[in-house]
C-alpha cells in the first residue's frame, strides 16, 4: 500500500511540475466550455442537465484523445530511459508499480473534471435541474475515463516510444468504441457480445440518471483486465 502511494505521488508531482497537465486541462475546458455554452445557454428552453454536454460525439472524442495523452509517458518513458529496470528490481512488486502509476493518471483526470463542476452550479443558478442526474453523470464520466486510462496504460507498457504508446492507446480505445457499430453489421449472437463490449454503450444510462450494476461491472472489468495485462507485460521483461 505504501509503495503504491509513493509511486502515485511521485507521478502526480511529475505531471504537475511540467506545463503539459495544465495545457491539456485548459484545452479540455475550452472545448467542453464551448459545448456547454452552446448546448445549455445557447438555445432557449434547453434541458437543464449535463446529458447533452457530455453525451455528444465531440465530448466522447476528446476523452478518447486525452486519455492516451495522459498515460502515454507513464511506462514507455521509463522503458526508454532504462529506469524501469531500477523500479522493477527495487523492493516493490510489479502490480504496485502499475497501480501507483494508474492512480496518478486517475488523479490528473479528476483534476481535469473538477473545474467542470462549474457547469452544474451554473445550471442550478439559471435552471431547474434534477440534481441526482449530476451525480450519476459524474459517476459515469469517472468510470468511463478510468477505463480509457487503463487501456492507455496497457499500451504504454508494450512500447518504449511515447508517441507509439499514445497512438496504440487511441487505436485500442477506438476499437473498443467501434465494436458497437460493428454489432449492427454482424448476426445475432456475436452482435450482442460486440455491443456489450462497446465502451460508450455503458455510458449513456448514467447521463439519463439510470445507474445499472452491469455498466459498473463492465467498467471495473475493463480497468482490472487492462491493469492485469499491464502487470503481465511488465513481468515479461524478466524472462524475455
Amino acid at each position, binding site marked *: 500500500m505504501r509503495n503504491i502511494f509513493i509511486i502515485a505521488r511521485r507521478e502526480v508531482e511529475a505531471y*504537475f*511540475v511540467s*506545463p503539459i497537465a*495544465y*495545457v491539456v*486541462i*485548459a*484545452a479540455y*475546458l*475550452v472545448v*467542453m*466550455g*464551448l459545448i*456547454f*455554452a452552446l448546448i*445549455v*445557454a445557447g438555445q*432557449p*428552453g*434547453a*434541458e*437543464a*442537465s449535463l446529458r447533452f454536454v457530455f453525451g455528444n460525439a465531440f465530448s466522447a472524442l476528446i476523452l478518447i484523445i486525452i486519455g492516451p495523452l495522459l498515460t502515454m509517458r507513464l511506462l514507455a518513458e521509463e522503458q526508454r530511459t532504462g529506469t524501469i529496470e531500477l523500479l522493477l528490481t527495487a523492493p516493490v512488486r510489479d502490480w504496485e508499480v502499475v497501480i501507483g502509476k494508474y492512480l496518478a493518471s486517475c488523479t490528473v483526470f479528476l483534476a481535469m473534471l473538477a*473545474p467542470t463542476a*462549474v*457547469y452544474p452550479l*451554473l*445550471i442550478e443558478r*439559471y*435552471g*431547474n435541474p*434534477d440534481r*441526482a*442526474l449530476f*451525480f*450519476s453523470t459524474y459517476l459515469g464520466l469517472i468510470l468511463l475515463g478510468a477505463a480509457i486510462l487503463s487501456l492507455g496504460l496497457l499500451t504504454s507498457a508494450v512500447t518504449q516510444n511515447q508517441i507509439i504508446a499514445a497512438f496504440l492507446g487511441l487505436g485500442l480505445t477506438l476499437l473498443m468504441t467501434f465494436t458497437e457499430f460493428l454489432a449492427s*453489421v*454482424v*448476426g445475432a449472437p*456475436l452482435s450482442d457480445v460486440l455491443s*456489450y463490449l462497446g465502451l460508450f454503450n455503458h455510458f449513456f444510462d448514467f447521463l*439519463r*440518471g*439510470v*445507474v*445499472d*450494476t*452491469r455498466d459498473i*461491472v*463492465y467498467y471495473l*472489468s475493463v480497468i482490472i*483486465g487492462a491493469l*492485469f*495485462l499491464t502487470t*503481465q507485460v511488465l*513481468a*515479461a521483461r*524478466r*524472462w*524475455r
Partner: protein
Amino acid sequence: MVIRLRQVAPHLAGTGLVLLLLALAAHILGSDPRWLPEALLGVGAVLIISYGLLRPREVAAALTGRRAIYGGNALLMSIAFLGILVIVNFLAARYHKRFDLTENKRYTLSQQTIQVLNSLQEPVKVTGFFTPDDLRRSDVEDLLKEYAYRSDKFTYEFVDPEQRPGEARRLGVTSYGVLVFQRGEKRQETFGMDEEDLTSALLKVSRDEQRVIYFTTGHKERDPQSFQPLDYGNIGQVLGRDNYDVKSLNLATITTTIPSDAAVIVVASPQIPFAPEEVDRLDQWLSQGGRLLLLADPPVPGAEDPMAAFSGMLAKWGVRLRSDVAIDPVSSFFGDAASPLITRFPFSSITKDLGGLTTFFPVARTMELTDPPPEGVTLTRLLETTQDSWGETNLTSQQARYDPDADVRGPLVLAAMIESQEKKSRLVVFGDADFVSNNILSSVRGAFGNADLFRNSINWLAEEEALIAISPKPPEVRTMQPLTPAQRNLIFYGSVIFLPLLVLALGGAVWWQRR
C-alpha cells in the same frame, strides 16, 4: 532447395497467420462462396506447420526453453484471468439491478408494463418514424430503451421518413412522429408517446384474438366495407390495420343479445330510424359495460330526425342532440362556414396526442351536455367550436344567419366522450358522420387529423381496464430559464475563457516558483 525454403520459412509462417485471420474475417462476415473460410484455414495451417518442419530446432527451443515456460505460464494466467472477467460480466449482465435516480422516477416502468413484457412469446419490433429534429424522439427513445432492457424479445429502431420513404410506405405510415409495433405479420401503430400508449400498443400487437368492431346495418348506415363516396371503406381499412376485425351487425335479426365478442358497436349516421326494440338492446348492452360510438348527422330539412329514436337513451348519459347545423364563419374549412375547423382540443384520453393537427366536420350538428352530469357519469367535451360560431336551426333557408331568438351562440360541443367508471360503460357521440367518409379521407389524405380522431375514439372505447391503471407521469419541466444576453455572455465567457485561463495561470505560477 531446402536451404532456400528454410530462409523464407518465417515469411511462410507470417503468411499463414494472415490467412488464418482472413479465414476468421470471412467466417464472421458470412463469405460467399462458403468454402472460402475453410480453404484459407487449411492453407494457413499448412504454411504454419511447414515452418515447424523446416526449422524444427527453433520450434523445439521455443517450446522447451526458459522463455517458453515463463511465456506459457503468463499466457495461461492471462487467459484464466480474462476468462474469469468474462464469466463475471456474463453473470452481471443477467442478474443486474437498475437504479432510477431521477426525482419522479421517469425511467421506472409500471408493474403492468413489466408483466406485459414478461409475457411476450414472440419478438416484437418497434419502428419509430421521426425526423431528426423531432424533439419527442429522445424522450420516447428513453422509454423504449427501458422496455428493451426488460425483455430481450423487444427491439426498436428509428427511421427518418424523409431519408427512407420506402420503409414508411412499406409499413403504411403516412405521417411523422409515429411508432409502429410489429409482431410477425401483425402491426399496430400509436401516436401517443406515454408509457400507457406504448404498453397498450404492445398488448394489442401481441394478442392473437382480434377484437371485433361491429357496425350496425339495416338503416342505411355508412358501410365500413363499401368504397362509395359517403361510405366508410377507408376508415374500415384503417381499423383493420389496427388489428381490429370489422363486421356488420343487424340488430333486427339477432334474437337474444348482442354478440359477446363485440368490443365496440358503431352506429354511423342511420337514415332510417331504429326500431324501439333495437334501441332497447343497445341501451341495455351499453348500461352493462358496453362500448358504443354514435355518429349523428344533422336532420334533413322536412324529414323526421332518425336520431330522435336515441334521445331517451342519450338523455340517461347526459347528452341532448340539437336539431341544428354548426356554423362558424371564423374557423371553417376553406371558407365553408358549415364545415367548422377545429385545431385546439380539450385535454382527454382521445385528443391528447392530436396537438398540432386540424380536424374539420362538414355539416355537423351540435349537442348539449347536462350540467351537472347524471349520477356516476363523467362527461368530457372532445370538440368545441369557436366563440363566433352558432347553431343554425333554420335548416331550410339558403343563407345562414345568426338568429338570437332561435340559435345558440358558440362555443358549441361537436363531440363528447362519456364514461361510467362503475359500470365500465363508454360512449362517444359525434355530431357528424361525414368527417371520415371515403370522399373526405381520400381528398384530404394525411393532412388532417380526422382519421386519427376516429381511431383514437375507437381505441379508447375498445380499451381494456387493465391498461387504464397506468397513470401517465406528470410532465417534467427541467429546463433552463430564458436567459438575458448578459447572462448568456457570463456563461459563455466564464466557461470558455475564464475557467481555462485560471488553470493556465495556476500552471504558470507553479512553473515560475520552481524556476
